[in-house]
């Protein structure tokens, strides 16, 4: 078993797991647990920034590969330990580092079963990092499945409300999706003889599959659709979010949903260029449903977390619309829409991460998330109010924040392809403004309520993750190139494959 590569990605993926094991085995005192978890999260953030800065955009392609051939040494079943990043996954690694950091620091006030809590939170981070960096389909699948276990425990033990129900619902939905995916992965393997996700696109194009490509596509897409989530398999999300602890909501909305979008781009679009072009109009339609239906239901919500959860469903619809632009116009595919979809995953991650962080802080201070009971908080907690407003404005796509960049890219990319669908989806920006501003009006503005007169603002410790996320939102909003250039490079290969596949000629006159 030979190991190639410098080990940076291996470190990124397994450092949290190592930290978790260390805490589980050796650390007893809660305070120490927190500090060690905090140190691991900080180190992980630094490492993910290193991955981001080490990735050489001028060279492009696959970099930082860590690989051992024959990880599972069975002759006919070549599973490799194979990690690597390209332009598509590098920013998502950074995103995971950012939000993992924010999540650990947002968990400082966890009081029950502290040790277990941080162990699971760190395991979760390993799983997500693994999904974004695995290039062997079985490894990818293992990481995909691994993520469910910590999520299940985190929601069902440290959650609130109907936490067992929500955790089980999350588990069943995700499990059902990934069962389909496993069948799809095996079908691909028995057709092509490889699990190598880099070789698979060509291999699929050149061999005859054991089942129609559309069916295999559908099997794998189901798992991603559940995760994103796509209407109508979205109902697990509001429940999971509402009952999960703050940090888990941050991870769930911030990075876990992006596993779905990432899979759609990497696997569904990258490996099935012909099918995705045929399916594009369905994606566009589902995207519009997600955006508009999600936004309208968001307006009705009275629980802050449930509100943000539904808004995530709405915002993930834009990812679908961005991906649908691969159908191209006049036989030409522009990478703008696909880049926008990837950007939307990154920006929504930071924005909604911030949003959940703020909601969590608010809940901690005032002990309620019910909007009708809130009001006038900005006089008592100005820092949290400002962060809340920034998250909200970024969410409604205000220029100068990262939310605008991804939305405009998606719109510009998809409008020439599906003008009507995109046009309807653009109306989502009005609905978003509606629920965001109404929420701000009812919670932060208005006269101060007496029983909140002793509420404290964010502590210095709590300001750290707020500042990190706000900084990234503004930075990407003002100068998006350093993320968008990478994504564009990442999707360029996929766009070229679609262009080459000849699928476009079939769809368009």
């Amino acid at each position, binding site marked *: 078993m030979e190991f190639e590569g410098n080990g940076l990605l291996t470190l990124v993926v397994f450092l949290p797991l190592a930290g978790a094991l260390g805490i589980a085995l050796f650390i007893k005192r809660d305070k120490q647990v927190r500090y060690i978890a905090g140190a691991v999260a900080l180190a992980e953030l630094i490492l993910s920034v290193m991955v981001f800065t080490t990735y050489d955009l001028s060279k492009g392609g696959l970099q930082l590969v860590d690989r051992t051939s024959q990880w599972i040494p069975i002759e006919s079943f070549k599973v490799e330990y194979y990690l690597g990043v390209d332009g598509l996954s590098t920013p998502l690694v950074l995103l995971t580092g950012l939000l993992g950091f924010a999540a650990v620091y947002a968990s400082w006030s966890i009081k029950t079963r502290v040790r277990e809590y941080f162990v699971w939170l760190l395991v979760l981070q390993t799983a997500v990092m693994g999904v974004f960096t695995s290039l062997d389909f079985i490894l990818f699948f293992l990481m995909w499945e691994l993520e469910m276990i910590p999520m299940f425990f985190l929601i069902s033990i440290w959650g609130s409300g109907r936490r067992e129900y929500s955790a089980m619902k999350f588990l069943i939905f995700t499990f059902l999706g990934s069962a389909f995916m496993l069948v799809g992965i095996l079908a691909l393997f028995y057709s092509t003889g490889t699990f190598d996700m880099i070789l698979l696109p060509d291999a699929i194009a050149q061999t005859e599959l054991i089942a129609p490509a559309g069916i295999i596509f559908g099997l794998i897409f189901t798992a991603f659709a559940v995760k994103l989530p796509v209407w109508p398999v979205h109902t697990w999300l509001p429940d999971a979010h509402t009952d999960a602890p703050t940090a888990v909501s941050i991870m769930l909305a911030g990075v876990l949903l992006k596993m779905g979008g990432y899979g759609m781009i990497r696997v569904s679009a990258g490996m099935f260029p012909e099918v995705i072009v045929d399916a594009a109009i369905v994606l566009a339609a589902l995207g519009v449903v997600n955006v508009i239906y999600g936004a309208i239901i968001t307006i*009705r919500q009275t629980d802050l977390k449930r509100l943000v959860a539904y808004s995530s469903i709405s915002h993930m619809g834009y990812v679908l619309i961005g991906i649908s632009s691969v159908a191209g116009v006049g036989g030409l595919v522009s990478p703008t829409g696909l880049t926008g979809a990837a950007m939307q995953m990154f920006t929504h991650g930071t924005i909604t991460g911030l949003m959940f962080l703020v909601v969590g802080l608010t809940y901690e201070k005032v002990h309620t998330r019910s909007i009708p009971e809130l009001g006038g908080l900005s006089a008592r907690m100005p820092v949290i109010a400002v962060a809340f407003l920034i998250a909200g404005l970024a969410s409604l796509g205000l220029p100068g924040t990262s939310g605008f960049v991804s939305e405009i890219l998606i719109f510009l990319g998809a409008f020439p392809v599906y003008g009507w669908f995109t046009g309807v989806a653009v109306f989502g920006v009005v609905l978003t403004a509606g629920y965001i501003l109404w929420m701000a009006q009812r919670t932060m503005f208005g006269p101060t309520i007496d029983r909140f007169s002793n509420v404290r603002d964010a502590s210095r410790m709590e300001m750290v993750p707020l500042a990190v996320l706000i900084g990234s939102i503004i930075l990407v909003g003002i100068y998006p190139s350093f993320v968008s250039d990478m994504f564009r490079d990442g999707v360029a290969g996929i766009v070229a494959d679609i262009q080459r596949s000849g699928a476009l000629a079939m769809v368009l006159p």
Partner: protein
Amino acid sequence: MTDFIPNFWQQIEEPQAWLIFLFPLGAFLVNSLIIRPFFNQYSKLSGWITVVSLTASFVLSVYAVGSVAANDGRSIGWASHEWVEVANFKMTVGIMMNSLTALMLLVVTGVSLLVQIYSMGYMKGDSGYSRYFAYMSLFTASMVGLVMSSNIVQLFVFWELVGLCSFLLIGFWFHKPSAAAAAKKAFLVTRVGDFGFLLGILYLFSQGDSFTANNLNPLEIRDIEKAIGLGTVISSSVAGWIALGFFLGAMGKSGQFPLHTWLPDAMEGPTPVSSLIHAATMVAAGVFLVARFFPLFEASPVALDTVAIIGGVTVVFAASMGLVMNDIKRVLAYSTVSQLGYMMLAIGVGAPGVAIFHLFTHAFFKCLLFQGAGSVSHAVGGTFDMRYMGGLRRVMPWTYATFLIGSLSLAGIFPLAGFWSKDEILASAQGQAGFIPQAVFGLALIAVTMTAFYMFRVLFMTFEGDYKGGADADPDVESHAPSNTPHESAWSMLGPMVILALLAIFAGFVANPIVNLGAIPEHWLVHDFLHESAAKFNLGIAAISTFAAILGILLAYLMYVSKTISAQTVVSSVRPIHTVLSRKYYFDELYEDLLTTRVFYRGLAGALDWFDRCVVDGLVRVIDNFGRNIGRLIGQAQTGQVQSYGAVLSGGVLVILGVLLFLK
């Protein structure tokens, strides 16, 4: 050649033009990131920082106007800079410096500067002093960025930032529920317009191929003009759709019917904010947008007619509500909507230069009137309700004099600034053949009388008669300054008002005289600077409109000063009309109660919410139950009794044997 520009005049360079934007932006950054968090006890500094930086911007704007004038009103070309590039979407940023830009810069920085000086007096002692100046600086910077933008996406960015700042400033006193609601309303209503604007941009961008075929960039404003000029790049109907999309955005920002509802509520913000919003920023952006993309509108007669009709309807519609309002700022707000309607209708009849001329003069007198309203409100303890004012002429001579000048200018009385620009609008409409221009001319003429009437109604109710107690008498004012007698305002407030009053007198005929005025050639601003040749002074129309205005003033005098006509009798004789007007044609009820709350929130959103919980999630539960029940059913077979297992097993073997035998 423009003779009044001295020979030594050097043309403005691009970095200097950027500074016009960077000074207020810098003031925002310093105020929000340094002064407010760390030096809030010295918050007085933030006022000075804002005023100094805006002075610098204003000086540079004068320089810009001079440079464009020296260039015979032609634009100074600077190439745009690449900012972000994603595939065929190239985002460039740059400055488009032409006569429209330069004039807007002058108005924006000049009016904003005067507003900031006034604010230093008006906002004295407010706990959010530095926050106020931070927002105001950002507001000005955004508006400056908006008018300078050379790329349409860049313009859209600033367009939205202008909307954000007005949201923050209208909701400045966010602890007041009415202020928070008004801020949200302003943002949302304008966002409905922005939806159209964004669709227009997307449609324009989707025409990219025919632009690139001609070596043009669809998002560069200059290139759009060139494309229209070529005539073959986009068809008239495409141009029309894009123009209508843009116009929806302009309607939202400029409060045109039926997206006008936010503007009268917007006065929940501090009064200087209103004076800035109504004069130079925010609402001016809509008119500017239509003027900026006039070639697109011109290419499509339908789009142009739409602009004219919406403008004409708005003129009368808004003025009619101004007739009956008792809140001084509300009258002024409806007046602004009505005056913006004049500008829109001018563009609609093909005279964007005249519209901008009116925007220019209107900025001065409307800013002045709002500052006067603020001064009055300070004097009477915090109310804006005119029913509790009266008799202030004697105690506030400066405020009275300047307010009178502003009112005369707004009413369009010779020779004040408003007279000249309004006359050119009327003449432009009347000079156009066709039913629509003639119809909107009629509407515009009717509104002249209405304007004069509501403005002098305000003037008489506020300054004439006897004092009626001010805020102490107003039951709607919950908290106000300890009761005091009315007094004249401080000079930090009066100074800007006097300057604005001078501008409200002279800005019209000095900038755009009807005869050669020394070095200034006749119709300089419109003809030579904004390059619009059609507009001419029309003596007949001037006479008619002056007569109409004097009629309005006379009526107001008879009703509110001499009381020859009893206002009560008039009101009661047209009670239903009066009710409709004072309820603002029930538009708030229509939008908020009926459409938003009942149809949308309870109806559509309620139904979808139910659908999501009961049908979509219900289906999940059904499947869940199905699985569980199947499991239970099978589970019942697992009794644990070896005897029954054996029986079933034997039965199974028999069945299989039987089948096999049968098949043999």
